[in-house]
């Protein structure tokens, strides 16, 4: 089973390597060496392939996990691996592609999860460090007047995790045919009357809007709203996928097929095409849409891992999830509302406005 999970070891001292977003290189925290992604890829290519093959053989020959992981074979959605560094048993979701050993902290890659057909096309490496993510989250709490005071104190910001989230990136075109009724109104005085002339127009617009890489998250574990809200990513930093970007972060493989995501991408493409075509209608006093037909032509679908800093926390029995774009730093999340604070603000503002309005009404 030891071969079923691997880590990238420092060629100099065999210490575990982790990807550093600042330098874009793999860093050894033990001896301070750093290596480019290409160097590590070349060094570990054969080992990765062998490990992936070994995992595939194990599953196909035995139909279930064996050895150290036998006890978990019957548990739906869980798999067990041995940490290559300390030998501890790691229990992971069946979608886990990269993780860290909770005992020795060794960053590990689960081979086979991101290889062959499951291999992502692209990855955007983490650019922001954990410290930056923690600072951003603390800053996010500031100025939130309705946030319960104890929430941020009891919040385990240290548990923020860097996760490579699987996304489908959809290319496509939207053909929009739209009809509008437009009016142009002019008024001018004639004698003792105002003459208003209204010209009515039938406005036809047809156009095609091309889209590239509309992202839809491909993980059932990730809330769609959170993943949508941290967009956009800067695609100029998309890189061909390599396992070498994963050490030090968590990663999941997709568990939602592209077919299940088409509807969300189509909806976004249709709405945007309608907006853009509508904007070409100008010079009228009023414009009223009369009808539209939009045809979506789906194109290439790419598979990418995109970086997200995440913190899941609980407060008064409810879960709150924060997500930060690991590339741009855009942070979103749901925060609890203190009913007492909300009422106090409402009462205070109402009293202040009442006093202000009374003064105004008194003097005017």
């Amino acid at each position: 089973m030891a071969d079923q999970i691997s880590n990238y070891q420092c060629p100099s001292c065999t210490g575990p390597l982790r990807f550093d977003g600042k330098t874009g290189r793999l860093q050894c925290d033990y001896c301070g060496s750093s290596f480019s992604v290409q160097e590590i890829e070349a060094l570990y290519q054969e080992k990765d392939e062998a490990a992936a093959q070994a995992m595939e053989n194990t599953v196909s020959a035995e139909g279930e996990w064996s050895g150290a992981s036998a006890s978990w074979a019957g548990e739906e959605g869980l798999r067990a691996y041995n940490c290559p560094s300390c030998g501890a048993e790691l229990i992971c979701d069946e979608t886990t592609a990269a993780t860290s050993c909770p005992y020795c902290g060794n960053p590990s890659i689960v081979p086979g999860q991101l290889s062959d057909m499951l291999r992502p096309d692209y990855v955007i490496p983490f650019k922001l460090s954990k410290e930056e993510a923690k600072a951003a989250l603390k800053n996010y709490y500031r100025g939130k007047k309705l946030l319960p005071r104890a929430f941020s104190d009891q919040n385990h910001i240290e548990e923020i995790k860097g996760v490579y989230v699987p996304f489908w990136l959809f290319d496509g075109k939207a053909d929009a045919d739209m009809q509008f009724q437009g009016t142009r109104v002019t008024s001018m005085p004639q004698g003792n009357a105002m003459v208003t002339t209204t010209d009515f127009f039938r406005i036809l617009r047809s156009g095609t809007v091309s889209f590239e890489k509309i992202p839809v998250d491909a993980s059932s574990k990730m809330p769609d709203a959170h993943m949508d809200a941290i967009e956009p990513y800067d695609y100029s930093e998309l890189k061909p996928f390599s396992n070498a970007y994963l050490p030090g972060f968590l990663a999941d493989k997709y568990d939602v097929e592209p077919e299940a995501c088409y509807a969300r991408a189509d909806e976004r493409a249709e709405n945007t095409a309608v907006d853009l075509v509508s904007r070409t209608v100008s010079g009228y006093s009023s414009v009223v849409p009369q009808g539209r037909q939009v045809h979506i032509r789906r194109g290439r679908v790419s598979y990418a891992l995109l970086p997200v800093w995440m913190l899941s926390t609980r407060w008064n029995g409810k879960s709150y999830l924060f997500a930060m774009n690991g590339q741009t730093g855009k942070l979103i999340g749901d925060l609890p509302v203190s009913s007492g604070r909300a009422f106090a603000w409402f009462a205070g503002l109402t009293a202040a406005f009442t006093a202000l309005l009374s003064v105004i009404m008194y003097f005017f």
Partner: protein
Amino acid sequence: MKKLWISLLLALALLLSLGAGAFAEARLEYVTDEAGILSEDTRRELNERARQISEDTGCGVYVVVVKDCRDYVNGGIETFAEEVFEEYGLGYGSTHDGVMLAMSMSERDYDIYAHGDFGNYAFTDYGKEQLAESFLDNFRRNDWAGGFRDFVDNSEDMIRRAKNGDPVDQWIPDPVQDPGPSLSAGELGLSALIAAVFGGTMVGGMKRQMKTAVRQTRAENYVAQGGVKLSRQDDQFVNRTVSRQVIRRDPPSGGSRPGGGHYGGTTISGSHGGSHHSGKF
């Protein structure tokens, strides 16, 4: 000019001089009510009070109420006030100092007319405005006696302040005698309601800040460069409608003279050593 009893003959002379009517058979006193809106007792009481003030201060305080000032003069309430003041030789001292509240009931016009050097010093434009405010609320309730009392009392205050070199040029209400206009319960309720809407909107905005995860419904960020291509752009004229609306040119509204006669009152300078503040009650 201490006596104000006017003879019938003098009234006839006034009739002739005004040309349009007469302050007919009136015995002009400090408080003269030709419209019959005061009981005789009340009128006497007010008259005595005005006489006392006038003689004590050397500045006349007068109230003249008629049914329709146009029965006496060719003009409005200001002309009436001026003509009465001049023709009856009202006022005290060499410059005929005094103040008169003239009212014409049919048009609900009033005019505060200050005359003479001291009269105009004591009754500034601002002072006349404040004086009007002190009685207009009574008049709007047809509380004539209360309004005249306010006029007489506040006139005395203004005269005495002017005597002390401090004419009313800005209103300092007496918190005991005149607590000033207060908001009604309805107005307070309306303020609170509007304030609650504002407060609720602001707290709602704060709450929205607490939930920032929203699904995207647009994809503008993913439109390819040069990815918008229009294949048809056709604007077809369908028909035209023409409507014609007659422009109504309303005559200018307001009173019987330029710049005056509106509800809130206005102050103008007269041509007889006096100044006016007039309006509707």
